[in-house]
Protein backbone atom coordinates (compact mmCIF):
# COMPACT_ATOMS: atom_id res chain seq x y z
CA UNK A 1 0.00 0.00 0.00
CA UNK A 2 2.83 2.35 0.95
CA UNK A 3 4.60 1.63 -2.34
CA UNK A 4 1.44 2.38 -4.22
CA UNK A 5 1.00 5.71 -2.40
CA UNK A 6 4.61 6.58 -3.13
CA UNK A 7 4.13 5.77 -6.81
CA UNK A 8 0.97 7.88 -6.98
CA UNK A 9 2.67 10.83 -5.26
CA UNK A 10 5.61 10.56 -7.62
CA UNK A 11 3.18 10.61 -10.55
CA UNK A 12 1.79 13.91 -9.24
CA UNK A 13 5.26 15.42 -9.17
CA UNK A 14 6.05 14.17 -12.67
CA UNK A 15 2.72 15.22 -14.19
CA UNK A 16 2.13 18.51 -12.42
CA UNK A 17 5.65 19.80 -11.85
CA UNK A 18 7.68 18.10 -14.59
CA UNK A 19 10.13 16.66 -12.07
CA UNK A 20 12.36 13.89 -13.44
CA UNK A 21 11.87 10.41 -11.92
CA UNK A 22 15.43 10.15 -10.64
CA UNK A 23 14.93 13.20 -8.43
CA UNK A 24 11.95 11.67 -6.68
CA UNK A 25 13.58 10.13 -3.63
CA UNK A 26 11.78 9.82 -0.28
CA UNK A 27 14.20 12.17 1.45
CA UNK A 28 13.91 14.87 -1.29
CA UNK A 29 12.81 18.22 0.14
CA UNK A 30 9.93 19.39 -2.02
CA UNK A 31 11.04 23.04 -1.78
CA UNK A 32 14.83 22.94 -1.70
CA UNK A 33 15.44 19.83 -3.81
CA UNK A 34 12.41 19.76 -6.11
CA UNK A 35 12.02 23.54 -6.46
CA UNK A 36 8.36 23.99 -5.55
CA UNK A 37 7.19 27.29 -4.05
CA UNK A 38 4.10 28.42 -2.18
CA UNK A 39 2.05 28.76 -5.40
CA UNK A 40 3.02 25.24 -6.44
CA UNK A 41 1.80 23.95 -3.10
CA UNK A 42 -1.71 25.19 -3.99
CA UNK A 43 -1.54 23.06 -7.14
CA UNK A 44 0.03 20.15 -5.26
CA UNK A 45 -2.96 20.11 -2.92
CA UNK A 46 -5.39 20.18 -5.86
CA UNK A 47 -3.52 17.35 -7.59
CA UNK A 48 -3.40 15.25 -4.41
CA UNK A 49 -7.11 15.83 -3.79
CA UNK A 50 -7.89 14.51 -7.26
CA UNK A 51 -5.44 11.61 -7.06
CA UNK A 52 -6.45 10.32 -3.65
CA UNK A 53 -10.05 11.56 -3.52
CA UNK A 54 -9.40 13.48 -0.30
CA UNK A 55 -10.10 17.00 0.94
CA UNK A 56 -6.96 18.50 2.43
CA UNK A 57 -7.07 22.17 1.45
CA UNK A 58 -7.54 23.38 5.00
CA UNK A 59 -5.66 20.57 6.76
CA UNK A 60 -3.05 22.25 8.98
CA UNK A 61 -0.72 19.26 8.72
CA UNK A 62 0.18 20.25 5.15
CA UNK A 63 2.24 23.14 6.51
CA UNK A 64 4.59 20.70 8.23
CA UNK A 65 5.34 18.66 5.12
CA UNK A 66 8.91 19.03 3.84
CA UNK A 67 9.89 15.79 2.11
CA UNK A 68 8.24 13.25 -0.15
CA UNK A 69 8.41 10.83 2.76
CA UNK A 70 6.48 13.33 4.94
CA UNK A 71 3.88 13.56 2.20
CA UNK A 72 3.59 9.80 1.91
CA UNK A 73 3.12 9.51 5.70
CA UNK A 74 0.47 12.24 5.59
CA UNK A 75 -1.52 10.45 2.90
CA UNK A 76 -1.22 7.15 4.78
CA UNK A 77 -2.53 8.83 7.93
CA UNK A 78 -5.42 10.31 5.97
CA UNK A 79 -6.34 6.94 4.55
CA UNK A 80 -6.10 5.32 7.97
CA UNK A 81 -8.39 8.00 9.38
CA UNK A 82 -10.81 7.45 6.51
CA UNK A 83 -10.95 3.70 7.10
CA UNK A 84 -12.05 4.02 10.74
Amino acid sequence: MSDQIETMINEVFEESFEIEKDQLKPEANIFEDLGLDSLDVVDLVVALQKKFKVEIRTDERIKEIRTLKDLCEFIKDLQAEGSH
Partner: protein
Amino acid sequence: MRRVVITGTGSISALGNSMEELINSIEQQVCGTKKMETWDQYKGLQSLVGAPAKLPDFKIIPRKMRRSMGRMSLLATFAAIEALDSASILKDTISNDQRYGCVAGSTMGSAEALNDTFETMLPDHDLTLLKSMGFFQSISHTVSMNLAQYFSITGSVIATSAACASSLQALGTGFDLIRHNTQDVVLCGGAEELHPTVTGSFDILFATSVKYNDTPKKTPRPFDKDRDGLVCGEGAGIIVLEELEHAKNRGANILAEVKGYNTCGSGNHISHSDRKAMIQCMDSALIDAKVQPSEIDFVNAHATATLQGDTEEAAAIHSIFGPDTPVNSFKGYLGHTLGASGAIELAVIIEMMNNNIIYPTLNLDNVDKTCNMINHVTTKQNKNIGFILKNCFAFGGINASIILKKYEEINE
Protein backbone atom coordinates in the same frame (compact mmCIF):
# COMPACT_ATOMS: atom_id res chain seq x y z
CA MET B 1 11.20 65.39 -28.05
CA ARG B 2 13.37 62.35 -28.63
CA ARG B 3 13.01 60.34 -31.82
CA VAL B 4 11.79 56.77 -31.72
CA VAL B 5 12.74 54.01 -34.14
CA ILE B 6 11.88 50.37 -34.66
CA THR B 7 14.78 47.95 -34.37
CA GLY B 8 13.14 44.54 -34.12
CA THR B 9 10.00 42.60 -35.01
CA GLY B 10 8.63 39.20 -34.09
CA SER B 11 5.39 37.42 -34.80
CA ILE B 12 3.50 34.19 -34.52
CA SER B 13 0.21 33.65 -36.29
CA ALA B 14 -1.80 31.33 -38.51
CA LEU B 15 0.80 32.08 -41.16
CA GLY B 16 3.77 30.74 -39.23
CA ASN B 17 6.03 31.12 -36.26
CA SER B 18 8.42 33.76 -37.57
CA MET B 19 8.46 36.96 -39.57
CA GLU B 20 10.02 35.07 -42.46
CA GLU B 21 7.18 32.53 -42.58
CA LEU B 22 4.61 35.31 -42.26
CA ILE B 23 6.02 37.35 -45.13
CA ASN B 24 6.48 34.27 -47.33
CA SER B 25 2.86 33.28 -46.73
CA ILE B 26 1.59 36.73 -47.62
CA GLU B 27 3.80 36.72 -50.73
CA GLN B 28 2.10 33.46 -51.70
CA GLN B 29 -1.38 34.85 -50.97
CA VAL B 30 -2.09 32.29 -48.25
CA CYS B 31 -5.30 32.67 -46.26
CA GLY B 32 -4.87 31.33 -42.71
CA THR B 33 -8.57 30.59 -42.19
CA LYS B 34 -9.59 27.00 -41.43
CA LYS B 35 -12.77 25.21 -40.54
CA MET B 36 -12.74 24.61 -36.78
CA GLU B 37 -13.80 20.97 -36.75
CA THR B 38 -14.94 20.70 -33.13
CA TRP B 39 -16.92 23.92 -32.96
CA ASP B 40 -20.16 22.46 -34.26
CA GLN B 41 -20.75 21.12 -30.72
CA TYR B 42 -21.71 24.66 -29.64
CA LYS B 43 -25.39 25.31 -30.07
CA GLY B 44 -26.01 28.65 -31.72
CA LEU B 45 -22.44 29.24 -32.93
CA GLN B 46 -22.84 30.18 -36.58
CA SER B 47 -19.23 30.91 -37.49
CA LEU B 48 -17.22 27.68 -37.59
CA VAL B 49 -14.04 29.21 -39.00
CA GLY B 50 -10.90 30.59 -37.39
CA ALA B 51 -7.26 31.31 -38.10
CA PRO B 52 -5.37 29.29 -35.48
CA ALA B 53 -1.64 29.48 -34.81
CA LYS B 54 0.51 26.43 -34.23
CA LEU B 55 2.25 26.79 -30.90
CA PRO B 56 5.95 25.81 -30.92
CA ASP B 57 7.39 23.45 -28.29
CA PHE B 58 6.70 25.57 -25.24
CA LYS B 59 8.78 23.38 -22.93
CA ILE B 60 11.83 25.41 -23.91
CA ILE B 61 10.36 27.99 -21.50
CA PRO B 62 11.19 26.85 -17.94
CA ARG B 63 8.18 25.56 -16.00
CA LYS B 64 8.22 28.28 -13.37
CA MET B 65 8.18 30.94 -16.09
CA ARG B 66 5.59 29.06 -18.11
CA ARG B 67 3.11 28.13 -15.37
CA SER B 68 1.53 31.60 -15.35
CA MET B 69 1.31 31.74 -19.14
CA GLY B 70 -1.94 30.95 -20.88
CA ARG B 71 -1.86 30.35 -24.61
CA MET B 72 -1.72 34.07 -25.46
CA SER B 73 1.25 34.69 -23.18
CA LEU B 74 3.13 31.75 -24.66
CA LEU B 75 2.49 33.17 -28.13
CA ALA B 76 3.72 36.59 -26.98
CA THR B 77 6.86 35.16 -25.44
CA PHE B 78 7.85 33.43 -28.67
CA ALA B 79 7.18 36.63 -30.65
CA ALA B 80 9.23 38.64 -28.15
CA ILE B 81 12.14 36.22 -28.36
CA GLU B 82 12.16 36.68 -32.15
CA ALA B 83 11.79 40.47 -31.88
CA LEU B 84 14.72 40.84 -29.48
CA ASP B 85 16.80 38.48 -31.59
CA SER B 86 16.08 40.55 -34.71
CA ALA B 87 17.01 43.70 -32.76
CA SER B 88 20.27 42.04 -31.66
CA ILE B 89 19.39 42.68 -28.02
CA LEU B 90 20.39 39.94 -25.60
CA LYS B 91 18.04 38.83 -22.85
CA ASP B 92 20.73 39.80 -20.33
CA THR B 93 20.77 43.34 -21.71
CA ILE B 94 17.06 43.99 -21.27
CA SER B 95 16.92 42.36 -17.83
CA ASN B 96 17.11 44.42 -14.66
CA ASP B 97 17.63 47.77 -16.40
CA GLN B 98 15.06 50.41 -15.57
CA ARG B 99 15.42 52.02 -19.02
CA TYR B 100 13.99 48.90 -20.71
CA GLY B 101 10.24 48.47 -20.54
CA CYS B 102 7.36 46.45 -21.88
CA VAL B 103 3.89 47.48 -23.03
CA ALA B 104 1.64 44.72 -24.30
CA GLY B 105 -2.06 44.19 -24.59
CA SER B 106 -4.87 41.80 -25.34
CA THR B 107 -8.65 41.97 -25.34
CA MET B 108 -8.73 40.14 -22.02
CA GLY B 109 -6.71 37.41 -20.36
CA SER B 110 -6.54 33.84 -21.61
CA ALA B 111 -10.01 32.72 -22.69
CA GLU B 112 -8.96 29.11 -22.24
CA ALA B 113 -7.87 29.74 -18.63
CA LEU B 114 -11.07 31.63 -17.85
CA ASN B 115 -13.15 28.87 -19.37
CA ASP B 116 -11.27 26.17 -17.44
CA THR B 117 -11.79 28.11 -14.20
CA PHE B 118 -15.55 28.30 -14.63
CA GLU B 119 -15.83 24.72 -15.88
CA THR B 120 -14.05 23.58 -12.71
CA MET B 121 -15.92 25.82 -10.31
CA LEU B 122 -19.48 26.08 -11.55
CA PRO B 123 -20.93 22.57 -11.84
CA ASP B 124 -20.89 22.16 -8.04
CA HIS B 125 -20.02 25.71 -7.05
CA ASP B 126 -16.79 24.24 -5.66
CA LEU B 127 -13.54 26.18 -5.44
CA THR B 128 -11.43 23.42 -3.94
CA LEU B 129 -10.11 22.13 -7.26
CA LEU B 130 -9.07 25.54 -8.65
CA LYS B 131 -5.39 25.77 -9.49
CA SER B 132 -3.16 28.65 -8.50
CA MET B 133 -2.38 29.83 -12.03
CA GLY B 134 -5.88 30.38 -13.40
CA PHE B 135 -5.78 33.93 -12.06
CA PHE B 136 -2.37 34.78 -13.51
CA GLN B 137 -3.32 33.36 -16.92
CA SER B 138 -6.62 35.19 -17.15
CA ILE B 139 -5.91 38.65 -15.72
CA SER B 140 -6.04 41.57 -18.12
CA HIS B 141 -2.30 42.27 -17.91
CA THR B 142 -1.27 38.66 -18.31
CA VAL B 143 0.72 39.27 -21.51
CA SER B 144 2.80 42.20 -20.27
CA MET B 145 3.18 40.61 -16.85
CA ASN B 146 4.50 37.37 -18.29
CA LEU B 147 6.86 39.10 -20.72
CA ALA B 148 8.18 41.20 -17.84
CA GLN B 149 8.75 38.09 -15.72
CA TYR B 150 10.35 36.11 -18.54
CA PHE B 151 12.79 38.89 -19.47
CA SER B 152 13.22 40.24 -15.90
CA ILE B 153 12.05 43.67 -17.04
CA THR B 154 12.28 46.30 -14.31
CA GLY B 155 11.38 49.39 -16.34
CA SER B 156 7.80 50.37 -17.17
CA VAL B 157 5.43 47.41 -17.45
CA ILE B 158 2.04 48.40 -18.81
CA ALA B 159 -0.94 46.52 -20.22
CA THR B 160 -3.16 48.13 -22.81
CA SER B 161 -6.54 46.46 -23.01
CA ALA B 162 -8.77 47.93 -25.70
CA ALA B 163 -9.87 44.88 -27.69
CA CYS B 164 -8.78 45.22 -31.31
CA ALA B 165 -6.80 48.41 -30.65
CA SER B 166 -4.82 46.90 -27.76
CA SER B 167 -1.47 46.38 -29.46
CA LEU B 168 -1.57 49.62 -31.43
CA GLN B 169 -2.22 51.39 -28.14
CA ALA B 170 0.76 49.47 -26.76
CA LEU B 171 2.93 50.84 -29.56
CA GLY B 172 1.61 54.35 -29.01
CA THR B 173 2.26 54.10 -25.29
CA GLY B 174 5.79 52.81 -25.91
CA PHE B 175 6.34 55.65 -28.38
CA ASP B 176 5.33 58.16 -25.70
CA LEU B 177 7.48 56.52 -23.00
CA ILE B 178 10.56 56.84 -25.19
CA ARG B 179 9.97 60.25 -26.72
CA HIS B 180 9.27 61.71 -23.29
CA ASN B 181 12.49 60.17 -21.97
CA THR B 182 10.98 57.70 -19.53
CA GLN B 183 12.41 54.64 -21.31
CA ASP B 184 15.11 53.93 -23.91
CA VAL B 185 13.84 50.61 -25.26
CA VAL B 186 10.32 49.20 -25.01
CA LEU B 187 9.00 45.83 -26.14
CA CYS B 188 5.57 46.67 -27.53
CA GLY B 189 2.76 44.60 -28.94
CA GLY B 190 -0.01 42.24 -28.10
CA ALA B 191 -1.40 38.75 -28.25
CA GLU B 192 -4.69 37.00 -28.62
CA GLU B 193 -5.88 33.42 -28.58
CA LEU B 194 -8.56 31.71 -30.59
CA HIS B 195 -11.32 30.14 -28.54
CA PRO B 196 -14.98 29.39 -29.21
CA THR B 197 -15.99 31.83 -26.49
CA VAL B 198 -14.06 34.61 -28.27
CA THR B 199 -15.59 33.91 -31.68
CA GLY B 200 -18.90 33.37 -29.91
CA SER B 201 -18.79 36.86 -28.41
CA PHE B 202 -18.76 38.34 -31.91
CA ASP B 203 -21.06 35.67 -33.30
CA ILE B 204 -23.99 36.53 -31.06
CA LEU B 205 -23.65 40.14 -32.25
CA PHE B 206 -23.86 38.95 -35.88
CA ALA B 207 -20.37 40.31 -36.58
CA THR B 208 -18.75 37.03 -37.69
CA SER B 209 -18.43 35.39 -41.09
CA VAL B 210 -20.94 32.55 -41.34
CA LYS B 211 -21.37 31.79 -45.03
CA TYR B 212 -17.98 30.28 -45.70
CA ASN B 213 -17.79 27.46 -43.15
CA ASP B 214 -17.21 24.95 -45.96
CA THR B 215 -15.00 27.25 -48.04
CA PRO B 216 -12.88 28.83 -45.31
CA LYS B 217 -10.15 30.17 -47.59
CA LYS B 218 -12.68 32.60 -49.06
CA THR B 219 -13.17 34.49 -45.80
CA PRO B 220 -12.75 37.10 -44.39
CA ARG B 221 -13.28 39.40 -47.38
CA PRO B 222 -12.38 42.99 -46.44
CA PHE B 223 -14.15 45.62 -48.58
CA ASP B 224 -15.63 42.90 -50.85
CA LYS B 225 -19.28 42.95 -51.85
CA ASP B 226 -19.66 39.39 -50.54
CA ARG B 227 -18.04 40.02 -47.16
CA ASP B 228 -20.10 38.76 -44.26
CA GLY B 229 -18.11 39.46 -41.14
CA LEU B 230 -14.87 38.88 -39.34
CA VAL B 231 -12.94 35.66 -38.74
CA CYS B 232 -11.18 35.45 -35.41
CA GLY B 233 -7.51 34.62 -35.59
CA GLU B 234 -4.80 34.27 -33.01
CA GLY B 235 -1.17 35.11 -32.57
CA ALA B 236 1.20 37.67 -31.19
CA GLY B 237 3.23 40.54 -32.53
CA ILE B 238 6.07 42.21 -30.66
CA ILE B 239 7.95 45.23 -31.93
CA VAL B 240 11.08 46.71 -30.39
CA LEU B 241 10.88 50.51 -30.07
CA GLU B 242 14.10 52.30 -29.31
CA GLU B 243 15.33 55.83 -28.90
CA LEU B 244 17.21 56.84 -32.06
CA GLU B 245 20.59 57.70 -30.52
CA HIS B 246 20.46 54.59 -28.33
CA ALA B 247 19.94 52.51 -31.46
CA LYS B 248 22.68 54.29 -33.41
CA ASN B 249 25.17 54.02 -30.54
CA ARG B 250 24.88 50.27 -30.47
CA GLY B 251 24.93 49.97 -34.26
CA ALA B 252 21.37 48.62 -34.47
CA ASN B 253 19.69 47.91 -37.79
CA ILE B 254 16.98 50.57 -37.86
CA LEU B 255 13.86 49.34 -39.62
CA ALA B 256 11.59 52.42 -39.50
CA GLU B 257 10.83 55.53 -37.48
CA VAL B 258 7.62 56.14 -35.55
CA LYS B 259 6.46 59.64 -36.45
CA GLY B 260 2.97 60.04 -35.04
CA TYR B 261 0.23 58.38 -33.05
CA ASN B 262 -3.24 59.04 -31.77
CA THR B 263 -5.88 57.17 -29.87
CA CYS B 264 -9.35 58.54 -29.20
CA GLY B 265 -12.84 57.51 -28.25
CA SER B 266 -15.90 57.66 -30.45
CA GLY B 267 -18.04 58.23 -27.41
CA ASN B 268 -21.36 57.50 -29.03
CA HIS B 269 -21.84 53.73 -29.44
CA ILE B 270 -20.15 50.62 -28.11
CA SER B 271 -20.20 48.66 -31.36
CA HIS B 272 -21.05 50.92 -34.29
CA SER B 273 -18.09 52.20 -36.26
CA ASP B 274 -18.02 55.97 -36.52
CA ARG B 275 -16.34 57.66 -39.47
CA LYS B 276 -16.13 61.00 -37.66
CA ALA B 277 -14.09 59.49 -34.83
CA MET B 278 -11.93 57.58 -37.33
CA ILE B 279 -11.24 60.83 -39.18
CA GLN B 280 -10.42 62.57 -35.93
CA CYS B 281 -8.00 59.80 -34.99
CA MET B 282 -6.17 59.77 -38.34
CA ASP B 283 -6.09 63.58 -38.50
CA SER B 284 -4.63 63.80 -35.01
CA ALA B 285 -1.96 61.21 -35.86
CA LEU B 286 -1.03 63.26 -38.95
CA ILE B 287 -0.76 66.42 -36.84
CA ASP B 288 1.37 64.57 -34.28
CA ALA B 289 3.66 63.37 -37.09
CA LYS B 290 3.71 66.81 -38.73
CA VAL B 291 2.85 65.09 -42.01
CA GLN B 292 0.37 66.12 -44.69
CA PRO B 293 -2.13 63.53 -45.99
CA SER B 294 -0.53 63.85 -49.43
CA GLU B 295 2.77 62.57 -47.99
CA ILE B 296 1.26 59.25 -46.86
CA ASP B 297 2.16 56.58 -49.44
CA PHE B 298 -0.30 54.00 -48.30
CA VAL B 299 -2.87 53.29 -45.63
CA ASN B 300 -3.20 49.93 -43.94
CA ALA B 301 -6.84 49.72 -42.96
CA HIS B 302 -8.29 47.98 -39.92
CA ALA B 303 -10.99 46.55 -42.27
CA THR B 304 -12.13 43.31 -40.67
CA ALA B 305 -14.78 42.54 -43.31
CA THR B 306 -17.79 43.55 -41.26
CA LEU B 307 -20.47 45.28 -43.31
CA GLN B 308 -20.59 48.55 -41.44
CA GLY B 309 -16.98 48.78 -40.26
CA ASP B 310 -15.43 48.54 -43.72
CA THR B 311 -17.88 51.07 -45.15
CA GLU B 312 -17.22 53.60 -42.39
CA GLU B 313 -13.47 53.17 -42.64
CA ALA B 314 -13.44 53.51 -46.44
CA ALA B 315 -15.42 56.74 -46.11
CA ALA B 316 -13.11 58.04 -43.39
CA ILE B 317 -9.96 57.23 -45.38
CA HIS B 318 -11.46 58.87 -48.48
CA SER B 319 -12.32 61.97 -46.51
CA ILE B 320 -8.67 62.50 -45.60
CA PHE B 321 -6.67 60.89 -48.39
CA GLY B 322 -9.03 61.08 -51.35
CA PRO B 323 -9.36 58.47 -54.09
CA ASP B 324 -5.71 57.82 -54.97
CA THR B 325 -3.74 56.75 -51.89
CA PRO B 326 -3.37 52.93 -51.96
CA VAL B 327 -5.26 51.12 -49.18
CA ASN B 328 -5.02 47.50 -48.09
CA SER B 329 -6.11 45.22 -45.26
CA PHE B 330 -4.35 42.10 -43.97
CA LYS B 331 -7.38 40.44 -42.40
CA GLY B 332 -7.88 38.18 -45.45
CA TYR B 333 -4.50 36.57 -44.67
CA LEU B 334 -4.40 36.52 -40.88
CA GLY B 335 -8.03 36.68 -39.83
CA HIS B 336 -8.69 39.23 -37.14
CA THR B 337 -6.09 38.70 -34.46
CA LEU B 338 -7.90 41.29 -32.31
CA GLY B 339 -5.52 42.60 -29.65
CA ALA B 340 -2.53 41.31 -31.59
CA SER B 341 -3.56 42.70 -34.96
CA GLY B 342 -1.97 46.13 -34.66
CA ALA B 343 1.50 44.79 -33.92
CA ILE B 344 1.47 41.77 -36.26
CA GLU B 345 0.21 43.86 -39.16
CA LEU B 346 2.63 46.71 -38.42
CA ALA B 347 5.48 44.20 -38.53
CA VAL B 348 4.37 43.22 -42.05
CA ILE B 349 4.13 46.88 -43.05
CA ILE B 350 7.73 47.48 -41.95
CA GLU B 351 8.83 44.70 -44.34
CA MET B 352 6.71 46.22 -47.10
CA MET B 353 8.19 49.68 -46.56
CA ASN B 354 11.73 48.46 -46.70
CA ASN B 355 11.08 46.38 -49.81
CA ASN B 356 8.90 49.05 -51.50
CA ILE B 357 6.07 46.56 -51.96
CA ILE B 358 2.38 46.85 -51.21
CA TYR B 359 0.63 43.51 -50.78
CA PRO B 360 -2.96 43.29 -51.97
CA THR B 361 -6.04 42.78 -49.83
CA LEU B 362 -6.72 39.05 -50.01
CA ASN B 363 -10.24 37.87 -50.92
CA LEU B 364 -11.12 41.28 -52.34
CA ASP B 365 -12.56 40.13 -55.66
CA ASN B 366 -15.32 42.70 -56.18
CA VAL B 367 -15.10 45.96 -54.29
CA ASP B 368 -18.37 46.74 -52.58
CA LYS B 369 -20.02 49.87 -53.87
CA THR B 370 -20.11 51.32 -50.35
CA CYS B 371 -16.31 51.03 -50.17
CA ASN B 372 -15.30 51.90 -53.73
CA MET B 373 -14.33 55.54 -53.22
CA ILE B 374 -10.73 54.66 -52.23
CA ASN B 375 -7.81 53.10 -54.11
CA HIS B 376 -7.90 49.41 -53.14
CA VAL B 377 -4.74 47.39 -53.69
CA THR B 378 -5.88 44.18 -55.41
CA THR B 379 -2.56 43.09 -56.92
CA LYS B 380 0.95 43.29 -55.55
CA GLN B 381 2.42 46.71 -56.30
CA ASN B 382 5.93 48.07 -56.31
CA LYS B 383 6.02 51.59 -54.95
CA ASN B 384 8.53 53.70 -53.14
CA ILE B 385 7.09 54.03 -49.64
CA GLY B 386 8.17 56.88 -47.39
CA PHE B 387 5.28 57.24 -44.94
CA ILE B 388 2.50 54.84 -43.96
CA LEU B 389 -0.52 55.17 -41.74
CA LYS B 390 -2.08 52.19 -39.97
CA ASN B 391 -5.46 52.00 -38.26
CA CYS B 392 -6.96 49.85 -35.53
CA PHE B 393 -10.56 50.39 -34.43
CA ALA B 394 -12.05 48.54 -31.49
CA PHE B 395 -15.40 47.72 -29.98
CA GLY B 396 -16.18 50.20 -27.26
CA GLY B 397 -15.56 53.05 -29.69
CA ILE B 398 -11.77 53.00 -29.29
CA ASN B 399 -9.68 54.21 -32.24
CA ALA B 400 -5.93 54.19 -32.81
CA SER B 401 -3.74 55.29 -35.73
CA ILE B 402 0.03 55.24 -36.09
CA ILE B 403 2.34 56.75 -38.69
CA LEU B 404 5.72 55.29 -39.63
CA LYS B 405 8.44 56.68 -41.84
CA LYS B 406 11.04 54.69 -43.69
CA TYR B 407 14.37 55.26 -41.98
CA GLU B 408 17.04 56.56 -44.31
CA GLU B 409 20.16 57.64 -42.49
CA ILE B 410 21.40 59.75 -45.38
CA ASN B 411 18.47 62.14 -44.98
CA GLU B 412 18.53 62.43 -41.21
